[in-house]
């Protein structure tokens, strides 16, 4: 993916025409021209709402359609459009390396235009409203926040990977209660984006997975907030690819845990971050959920992966897992404490390289499906408030289990219950 020195002459000329901009809106998904037209209008509305003489550039990966973008751009003099190949086609947003290239391209463009703030949209453009963009960029432009994390209105069985691992783990380790560290839509200050993408030496940083933005911001002492931006249509994942997604997401997270160990070992407890906007309720689907398949996957894993799990999990945890595998699907319940220990042990196993890291990350899939089944059974008849309460309980369990992680992290051989 091109950085500033690799910009084609045509795009460079376009940037020279634009001159400068305060805000960059990066669209990571490939967008159709009519969608870009809508985004341009929406950004125009946002700039008017912010009631400042601001200029913005929308950068997006061009589609193969005939370009109408310049007409769309002319509709609003304060918003310009730059087509730029940000991501390779069919790139998953969980692939850290590719995504970091996309962010780096957006940042390179913003740097050349002297931008102060960035809004990066990775979700489907169908759901993007002026409220989305406004709430993601306003805290950066007007209130000196460095990172704006999104809060979506979600169904209770959406964002499971975020709710089961990322949100509580980030909170327990870094002490900030951010609901969606995984994003993927964020608002950034130029200062933070520079820090995220480049090391102090100026060399490209290999960081770039969206899931690491919150932890890097916390470690760097940046101002973090979150914004309730509305509904999002998360992509449906083929279960065959779930282990790859888990490996893509958890690999950088566990690396981050290892890298930031000196920081998080000093953090005690957690505190809320400022939230903008009111929580938006999403119409919840009621009714029972069929978890048989998930429980069967867990049981299959328990029958076949004992040897692999045994390398990572201590005997007591392994024993609990084996006991769990004997439960009938409708009685299935994975205690929070067990799940927390499993995640912490996998983080430690990743650090110690007790088995190949790819094997380790993929071997977590049946356990994750077990947690999903247990959680789905618990919340199938819950209201949104009850779901939130349940997730808070899980976060508390992660915080309570942090002493376990600390002990195992410091003395992996001696402390092996």
């Amino acid at each position, binding site marked *: 993916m091109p950085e500033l020195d690799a910009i084609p002459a045509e795009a460079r000329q376009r940037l020279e025409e634009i001159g400068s901009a305060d805000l960059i809106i990066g669209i990571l998904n490939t967008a159709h021209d009519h969608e870009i037209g809508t985004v341009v209008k929406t950004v125009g509305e946002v700039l008017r709402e912010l009631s400042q003489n601001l200029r913005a550039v929308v950068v997006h990966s061009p589609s193969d359609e005939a370009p109408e973008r310049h007409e769309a751009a002319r509709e609003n003099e304060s918003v310009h459009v730059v087509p730029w190949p940000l991501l390779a086609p069919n790139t998953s947003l969980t692939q850290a390396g590719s995504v970091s290239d996309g962010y780096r391209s957006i940042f390179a463009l913003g740097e050349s235009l002297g931008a102060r703030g960035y809004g990066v949209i990775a979700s489907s453009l169908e759901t993007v409203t002026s409220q989305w963009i406004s709430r993601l960029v306003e805290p950066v432009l007007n209130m000196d926040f460095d990172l704006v994390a999104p809060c979506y209105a979600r169904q209770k069985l959406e964002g499971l990977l975020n709710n089961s691992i990322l949100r509580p783990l980030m909170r327990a380790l870094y002490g900030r209660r951010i609901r969606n560290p995984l994003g993927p839509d964020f608002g950034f200050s130029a200062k933070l984006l520079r820090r995220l993408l480049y090391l102090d030496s100026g060399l490209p940083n290999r960081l770039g997975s969206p899931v690491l933005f919150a932890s890097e911001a916390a470690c760097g002492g940046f101002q973090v907030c979150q914004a309730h931006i509305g509904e999002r249509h*998360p992509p449906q994942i083929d279960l065959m690819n779930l282990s790859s997604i888990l490996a893509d997401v958890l690999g950088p997270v566990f690396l981050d845990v290892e890298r930031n160990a000196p920081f998080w070992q000093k953090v005690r407890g957690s505190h809320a971050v400022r939230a903008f906007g009111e929580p938006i309720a999403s119409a919840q689907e009621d009714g029972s959920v069929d978890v048989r398949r998930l429980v069967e996957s867990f049981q299959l894993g328990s029958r076949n992966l004992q040897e692999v799990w045994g390398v990572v999990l201590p005997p007591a945890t392994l024993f609990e897992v084996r006991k769990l595998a004997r439960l009938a699907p409708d009685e299935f319940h994975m205690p929070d404490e067990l799940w927390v220990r499993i995640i912490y042990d996998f983080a430690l196993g990743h650090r110690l390289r007790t*088995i190949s890291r790819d094997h380790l990350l993929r071997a977590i899939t049946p356990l994750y499906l077990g947690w999903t089944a247990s959680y789905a059974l618990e919340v199938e008849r819950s209201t949104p408030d009850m779901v939130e309460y349940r997730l808070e309980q899980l976060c508390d369990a992660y915080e309570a289990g942090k002493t376990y992680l600390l002990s195992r992290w410091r003395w992996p051989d001696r402390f092996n219950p």
Partner: protein
Amino acid sequence: MLEQVREALHQSTIRVITKLASLLPGTVALIIAVALSAVLGAILAFLLRRLLRAVDFDERLAHAVSPVWTQWSPSQSPTLLVTRVVFWALILIGFLIGIAAFDATLTSQLVLSIFTYLPNVVAAVLVLLMGTLIARFIARSVLIGAVNMNLQYARVLSLGVKWLVLVLTVAMALEHLSIGGGIVQLAFGILFGGIVLALALAVGLGSKELVSRSLEREKTTAETEEPFRHL
């Protein structure tokens, strides 16, 4: 006549006893040399084990070559392996010294043939080592992948793949050692083909229902998984 027979018997007995008596010092020397080298080897191995444990050899090695080493997962610790190699090397040296007590030329011929053959042995050991490593790694990859794909026959598949690689490895090692020649190749072909055929039959016929149930389950998964959004 009887006197002559007795004389001949007497002479042959004396010859045999003389021959045995001439071999006895060499035999005793061989036993002493092996015994001494065993004692020396045990002492050296003990000292080496203490030294390696003092410098945390196992942990250092695990950190240095961790991914490869952990895939192999030897049942013995590296320290133990090194000390055993030293011990048996000393016994081998003692044995060669003992043989030299019989006949110096015999030893040099033995040493020469051993050293000529040694590269083959080293290559075979390396092939075996790498093959075992690769077999374990691939077997584990297949096992995890198959479990994540919800295949009930994950373990069978993993074992099949593991044995395919191991059979291939052993055939290559034997080829290096020049053992068996054409028989090994033929046996390998039969065994390798047999395993592939067995796997194909297991999946195609024997486990037909199992596979169809697995596939059916996969088909219905998309519908039953509808409410779950992981991202």
